[in-house]
């Protein structure tokens, strides 16, 4: 599954695989989830949390912490999995995903979940809030950096481009936007619905420093993030070319899996591909 990736660190590769296992278990337990939008950002999140984000259990309110905003809030299963894995709350809490009494809903709630900076779910909001966070850090003279993860379909929202203009004007070198460019949106291929290409050129023309990488290549992700924060005086966007549903062959690149849950046969196949022997034990 991570064969195409440059191996940065075996622990990170193992972590990414484990997150995919957890997300599948969560989705099955909940009886539904945005599985594939979570799978396309897992490698990005794994590298960010393991090697770049200055945020740890206990530092959630530290004014100097780095902020990560999942602007494409529907990919939250991946975020919950990594927050649990990194100790922000117990892994067993993931069993409650989308259930009555759980803090983990189908979109993230900043008031319930440690480590979540903004309650997202409606597209085009989190990115703009992240710009506010980056501006605040700049005005306060803090070293805190802000990461925002956007969907490519989300870039059809006008507010994204309002924000893109403002962040460049405000010279927010402490801001990194990562576009999960998986090429798919709810009802089909982005290019067939409201194309965004040339996406790099668009961001570049808005005054951003741009990089384009394979969003599943851990070494490339790592290098790009390091480079991004060495750029001063303007924000950086990483166009991460990803595969929606990455990790489960029949889900990869198929729009229908934005919503669908595997049937019994499909589930067996997914477990086999993700190295899961016992799905019930994944969240323990």
């Amino acid at each position, binding site marked *: 599954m991570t064969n195409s990736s440059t191996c940065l660190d075996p622990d990170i590769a193992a972590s990414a695989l484990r997150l995919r296992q957890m997300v599948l278990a969560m989705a099955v337990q909940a009886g539904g989830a945005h599985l594939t939008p979570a799978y396309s950002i897992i490698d990005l999140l794994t590298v960010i949390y393991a090697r770049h984000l200055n945020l740890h259990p206990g530092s959630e309110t530290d*004014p100097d912490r780095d902020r990560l905003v999942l602007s494409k809030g529907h990919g939250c299963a991946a975020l919950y999995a990594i927050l649990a894995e990194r100790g922000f709350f117990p892994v067993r809490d993931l069993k409650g995903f989308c259930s009555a009494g759980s803090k983990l809903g189908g979109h993230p709630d900043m*008031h319930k979940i440690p480590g979540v900076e903004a309650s997202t*779910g409606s597209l085009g*909001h989190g990115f*703009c809030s992240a710009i506010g966070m980056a501006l605040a850090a700049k005005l306060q003279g803090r070293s805190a950096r802000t990461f925002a993860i956007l969907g490519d379909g989300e870039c059809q929202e006008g507010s994204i481009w309002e924000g893109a203009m*403002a962040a460049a004007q405000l010279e927010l070198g402490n801001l990194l936007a990562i576009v999960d460019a998986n090429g798919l949106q709810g009802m089909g291929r982005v290019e067939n619905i409201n194309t965004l290409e040339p996406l790099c050129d668009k961001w570049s023309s808005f005054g951003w420093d741009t990089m384009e990488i394979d969003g599943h290549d851990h070494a490339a992700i790592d290098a790009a993030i390091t480079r991004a924060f060495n750029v001063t005086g303007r924000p950086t966007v990483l166009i991460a070319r990803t595969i929606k549903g990455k990790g489960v062959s029949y889900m990869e690149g198929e729009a229908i899996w934005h919503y669908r849950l595997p049937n019994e046969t499909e589930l067996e196949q997914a477990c086999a591909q993700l190295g899961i022997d016992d799905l019930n034990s994944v969240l323990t």
Partner: protein
Amino acid sequence: MRNAFIAELTELAEDERLITLLADNGIIVYDEYARRRPKQLLNLGIAESNLIAMAAGMAGSGFIPFVYSIIPFLVMRPYEFVRDDICYQNRNVKLVGIGAGYAYSTLGPTHHGTEDVSILSCLPNLTILSPADPLETRQATRAAHEHEGPVYLRIGTGRNPDVLDGDSGAFTIGRARLLREGSDLAILSHGTILSEVLVAAKQLERQGISTRVLNMHSLSPLDSAAVVAAAKEIGTILTVEEHSIFGGLGSLVATTLMESQCGDANLKLMGLKRRFCESYGSVEDLRKELGLLATDIARAGAELARERAATKQTSRAAGAADVRQIDQADIQPAGTHKA
């Protein structure tokens, strides 16, 4: 009122957490503020959705953003951002809407602030303040700054007549202000049209109608105790607003009365009923067209007070009849009641 707001804001900006965010409105009027607080003023351009969400993000990092624009652009265009990023996230952001009612009377319906309370009063966590004059604007601005949580402050522009006298007492969120005591009729209102209401109350006085005037500057939370007291003590309520009655003060008062089992109070709502005012001129010109001048308010108030007086007479007669029926039942011989 705008100048009063900015003057107060300039003082409050001693608090370095306060930052004023503009959407390209306010040339000249912010000059003094900019001179005194240059690091606490940013014009983020004509992009209100981003502006609202950015303010939420800044509030999360310890700033107290005052976001200022013309009402429809501030809260209608980016409504979902207000709902999700300010209210749902419960951010300490102050939204300051300029142009309440027909303050921009020459600019047409795109610039009128006549449905904002309707769409905002249903939102959780949001405090809504609608001051009546420059003095109250300063007080409301200070209250908004002191309040921890989202606030929407709606104000007029330019010169607005004084409504409060010097000894107006403290401004308290959630507490209506008694502007005038009376016993025949209660007029509940908010914003700059209160100046018309006070003139109407004097006209009514000359007709022998004693009018209580309540300034409902705090629309959310509404002072429900003051509303209920008006219903119980007077029983006749006229709401007056330069705003839609649907979702505006009139609806809020009606809901309060029904929820408080005061539905038998006589209630009339004056304001807009699903219409745009497509005329131009002064605020008074527009109020005249819509029947919201002092004379219109006095006429409606007098009619309502007379209706109430007539109803009271009728119910007194009906009440007496009820008593007589009970008396007759009571004197029926024992054993004649059917089981």
